C-alpha cells in the first residue's frame, strides 16, 4: 500500500518531467552547440519559478490582511 501512496516521486520525476529533461538535453547538446543561450534560457526558467514562488508568498501575505488574520 505504501508503494502506491508514495508513487508521486516516480510520477513527477520519472514521467511528467521527461519532456523537460529532453528539452534541456536538446538545449545544451544540439547544434549549433554553445553554452551562452541555453544558460540565458535556463536563467529565465529558474527566474520565473522563483518569481512565482515569491509572488504566491506576497499574494498570501496580502490576503491575510483582507481576511484579518
Amino acid at each position, binding site marked *: 500500500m505504501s508503494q502506491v501512496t508514495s*508513487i508521486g*516521486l516516480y510520477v513527477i520525476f520519472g514521467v511528467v518531467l521527461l*519532456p*523537460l529533461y529532453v528539452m534541456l538535453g536538446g538545449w545544451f547538446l544540439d547544434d549549433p552547440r554553445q553554452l551562452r543561450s541555453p544558460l540565458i534560457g535556463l536563467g529565465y*526558467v529558474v527566474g520565473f519559478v522563483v518569481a512565482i*514562488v515569491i509572488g504566491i508568498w506576497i499574494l498570501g501575505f496580502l490576503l491575510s490582511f483582507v481576511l484579518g488574520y
Partner: protein
Amino acid sequence: MTEPSTEEVLAPLRNTTWKFGVLMSVLVVYTGLFLYAWYLQLQHGLVVTGLGDWGPGGGIPWGLYIGTFVWWVGIAHGGIAISAAVRVFKVERFDAIARIAEVLTVIALMMAAANIVFDLGRPDRLFNTLEMLPSTLYHSPLAWDITVITLYLVLSVTYLILSLRSELHALRDRLPGYLQPLYSFVLLGYRPAEDEKVDRMLWWLAIAILGLVPLLSGGVVPWLFGLVGAQPGWFGAAAGPTMLMESLASAVAMVFIVTAVFRYVYDWTFIDEDVFMGLAKVLGFLSLAVMWFLLQEVLPGLYAAPTQSQEVTHALLDAPLYWVAVIGINVGMLYLFLGIIRPRFFNIPAAVVASVLITGGIWTKKVLFVVDGLLHPTFPPLTNLYPSGWYVPSLVEVTIAGGSLVIAALLFAIATKLIPMVEIDAQEVDE
C-alpha cells in the same frame, strides 16, 4: 496567408482608438464587480457561495470554480500546442495566429490558478501548498498539479520571451518609449548571433510543450479526480483521453474566437479565411472525438455498470444543463462540418458562434463532471450514511468565476499594448 506589413502588426501598439477605450472601460467596470464579489467571499468565507460540506452536510466542496479551473487548463494546452505545432511540424498556415495562441496559453494558465485560489477557504495560506510540497509530492495529486501547472506556465512564458527576442531587437526603435524597460528584460544578454541557436532552442521547447500536453490535460488534471475512489464517475481508464479531447476542442474553439476578434477589431485581413477554415476542420474533428468519448461514458454507464456509476449517469442525463451542453457541442460541430463540406456556407461570424457553443458546452460538461461525482456519494459503505447532496452556485460565485473570463479579456487587451501579436521575422522588418 498574405504576409502582414510591419506597420499593420505594430498598429495596436502605437495607436489607441476610442473603441479600445470603451472596451477597457467595460472590462474595468466588471473587474470592479468581480473584486467586490471576491472581497465579500474573503470577508464572510465560502458560506457566500453555493459550496458546502461533503458527506453528512449534503453539500459539495468543489463546484463552479474547480470546473472553470479544469476548463482554463484545457484552453491553455491547445493555445500553445498550436504554436508548438507550427514550429515542429511546419504548419505554416497557422503562422499568423501562433503568437495569439501563445499569449492565450499564458493568460489561461493564470486564470486556471486564480480559480484554485477562489476555491480555497483560507487563501492566505496559499504559500503552505509550496512549503509542504516536499512531503505532499509523495502522495497528493493536488501537489502534482501545482508542480506541473507551474512548470507549464514557466515553459510557456519562456517560449513567449525567447520567440520575441530577435524581433523586439529589430523593432525596438519603433516601439513605445515607456515600454523599453520591459523590452530590456526580454532582451537580457541578447546578441544577434544567437538567433540560430535560439530558434533551435524554441524547437526543443516546443517538443517539451507538446509532450506535456497529454501528461497534464490528459494526465495530472484528470488524476485529480480519477485517483479519488469515493466519487463515482470520476474514475475510468478513458477519463484522461476524454478530458484531453475536451481540452483540445475547447482550446481550438477559444483560439478561433480570439483570432476572429483580432481580425475584426484591427481589420487584419492577412489572417485569411483559409486559416479559419483550417481551425474549423481541426475543431470539427475534435468535437466529433468529444462526442465519441461521451458515448463511451454514457452507454456503459447506463447498461450494466456498478450501481453508483449508473446513478451518476442517470443524474447527468436528467440534468437539463447536460443536454444544453451536448446539443450546443453538436450544433456547433454540425455547422463546422457543413462549412467544410460546402464552403459556401462557411463564414467567420457563424463559426465563432459554433466555437462559443462548443467551448461553452464543454465548460458546462466539466462543471457537471465535478459536481455530479460529489453529489452522489454512493460508494459503499457511504451509500446508506450520506445523503445525495445538492448544489446551486450563488451570485457571488458566478460573478467571481465569470470574472476570470473578463480578466482574461482585460489581460489580452493589455497584452496588445505590450508586444506585437503577430510574429514578425526579424529579417523581414520593413521600413
